[in-house]
Structure formats: structure tokens, C-alpha cells
């Protein structure tokens, strides 16, 4: 076999085995498990904005954010700083006067998937979030828990 082909065969074998090894060994981490139910795109939270704060449960880092609901879509102003997620459609369901909502934001420039699940009770909101990054060599997940209150839309910048 010519030398060039041998080198190519070694390179293909190395990278092929590498890719196979990583796909087998790289353990996926599931996104936040959102409870099942009669989720529907009702737009029930349109026009609301919440100022939220909480922590990254893995590092303990404090987080502050503003979230906005508009035209059946959702946006986190803090997440927009790290990736241009844009506006993601959200769904809601009503249980005993509590509005539950969920949305999944996908970063178009990097392999980030952010799943939100929260409950709105009166003016207050409590949310669980997972920020999952699926790189080709590993999967990293940041679990986040935040609470907050309604804030006027005009107080939110960005």
C-alpha cells in the first residue's frame, strides 16, 4: 500500500475510533424534566415581565435576570448576553389558579439548550432551569433555581 494511503488509513482509524469512543463514553445529561399535562400555547403570560434572582445550583453563583413574555414568546435578557437565543415560544397550563409555563431556548451559535419550567402565583414566580451544553467531547449541565416578582416592562433594559 502506498505510504500516503497508509498515513490516511492511520488518520482515519485514529479519528474514527476517537469519534466512536467519545460517542460511547460521552454520557448525555437529560434536559430538565417538565411535568406532563395539557400544555398549550395560550399566551396567558403575554405582557408580563418578572425580575428574578437565584443561584446556579452547581457552583452556588448568584444570578439575576429579567424575563419577558410577549406575543406567545419568551425571552431572558441575561441569556441574551451569552447567546442570541432570540424569542422562544412558550406553553402554559392552569392548575388550581397557578399558571405553569415552560419553554425551551436553543442557541443558534453554540450547542446550548435552556429549558425553563416555572409557576406563576399571583405576582410571584418560581422557576427551575437547566442550561445544557452538548459539546462533541462532553455534556455539561448547569441547574438553576430562581424566584421573582412581576416588574413593569418599562423597567427592563435590553
Amino acid at each position, binding site marked *: 500500500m502506498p505510504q500516503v494511503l*497508509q498515513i490516511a488509513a492511520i488518520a482515519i*482509524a485514529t479519528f474514527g475510533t476517537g469519534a466512536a469512543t467519545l460517542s460511547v*463514553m*460521552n454520557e448525555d445529561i437529560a434536559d430538565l424534566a417538565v411535568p406532563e399535562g395539557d400544555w398549550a400555547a395560550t399566551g396567558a403570560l403575554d405582557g408580563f415581565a418578572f425580575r428574578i434572582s437565584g443561584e446556579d445550583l452547581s*457552583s452556588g453563583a448568584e444570578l439575576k435576570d429579567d424575563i419577558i413574555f410577549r406575543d406567545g414568546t419568551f425571552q431572558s435578557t441575561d441569556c441574551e448576553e451569552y447567546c442570541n437565543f432570540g424569542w422562544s415560544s412558550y406553553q402554559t397550563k392552569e392548575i388550581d389558579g397557578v399558571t405553569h409555563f415552560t419553554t425551551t431556548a436553543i442557541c443558534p451559535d453554540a450547542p446550548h439548550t435552556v429549558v425553563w419550567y416555572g409557576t406563576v402565583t399571583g405576582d410571584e414566580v418560581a422557576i427551575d432551569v437547566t442550561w445544557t451544553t452538548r459539546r462533541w467531547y*462532553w455534556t*455539561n449541565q448547569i441547574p438553576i433555581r430562581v424566584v421573582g416578582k412581576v416588574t413593569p416592562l418599562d423597567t427592563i433594559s435590553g
Partner: protein
Amino acid sequence: MTSDGLTLQGLILKFGILIGIIALATWGVHMIRDALDLQIRPDNEQQVHKAIMIGAMAYIALLAMPFVPGAEIGIALLAGFGAAIAPLIYVCTIAAMMLAFAVGRFLPISALERALRVFRMRRTADLVARAAPLPREERVAMLLEGQSKRVLRLALRYRYVAIAVAMNTPGNSIIGGGGGIMIIAGLSGIFTPLSTFLTVILAVSPVPLAVIFLGLQF
């Protein structure tokens, strides 16, 4: 009980010192890890990703070079990012070993020596220069200088086992480290690429597999 002047007390003392060094190293790694406080957050994930990619490239390049300590980069990545990074380190180690083997096997020996001298890697160039005039099998035997003829004969007969053992032997940096061993293996011409590849896959697996299955317990 004595052997070559080594008493039982001496043996126990040496073993105790070894345990002490391991304990100190464990403590040191934990200190470094705590000091680095590497937390992956949404705001730094991109930078962490870039750092890992640069680290992986540097790891492959350095590990493939003889007499250059590259394994430390792999250990640093493991210490910094934990067991999750072990598969990447494993794959990079295989890539580095096969890169060194391909350089030794396919680059003309005189060109390799000249290139090493251009890059001022004199020790490596000297190693290659010593190997150049030797018959193929003696090039491998060169790595086992000082060993008895029986050991040499066994090493040549079970050369793939010998190369796997050499790669995992602590202190193999004296004979060129993993990169140097693989360059000489390539130069010898007695190792086929496929068998060498399979040997490398098995030979470099103990550390990453231990980290994956046992966790990062330095």
C-alpha cells in the same frame, strides 16, 4: 531478609516515603483544583471550551514529541475538569501516539533527524541518529539497553506487549517518553500500523478508564 543490601526496614521506609509522596501529590492536586475554582457557567462556557480545545491540541503535539513532558497537560485537564474530560484525554493520547508512530514510520530517518536539529531538539535528534545505522530489530532493542539478552529476546518476540509496557512504565521519559518510544517503534519498521494502533488503544486506556469508572480520586 536482604537483597542487594536492601533490608526489610529499608524496603518499608522506601514504601512509606512513596505513600507519603502520593499523599502529598493528592493534597497538592486538590489544593490546585480548589485554587483554580474552575466553574463552568453560562458566561464563561465559551472560554472554557476554547481553553479545552487549545489544551487538547497542545497535549497531542507535546505528547508526540520525545523528551517533552506532555502527560502533565492531560493530568492538569483531568484535575481541572474531572472525569468528564477523560474520554477526550484518552482520544488525544491515542492521536498523539499514532502521530509519533507515523512520523517515525513514514518520515525518512535523515529528514527526521535534520528536522529535529532545526527545532533544536538535540536529545531527540541524537536518539534518532543513534537508531539510524542500526538494523530494524536493534532499534527496538536500543530502548531496552542494559537489559539481559533473554529480556531483549522476549521483548522482540512479544514486541507489542513490550511497547505497551514501555508506554506505561513510570520514568519512561528517560528513553524518550511515549512520543520517543512510538517514533522509534515507527522507525524500526517491525510494527505494523494496525497492530500498533490496537496496542495503543489498549495501552493508554488504564488511566482514563480508571478515572471514568472510579472517579477523580487522586
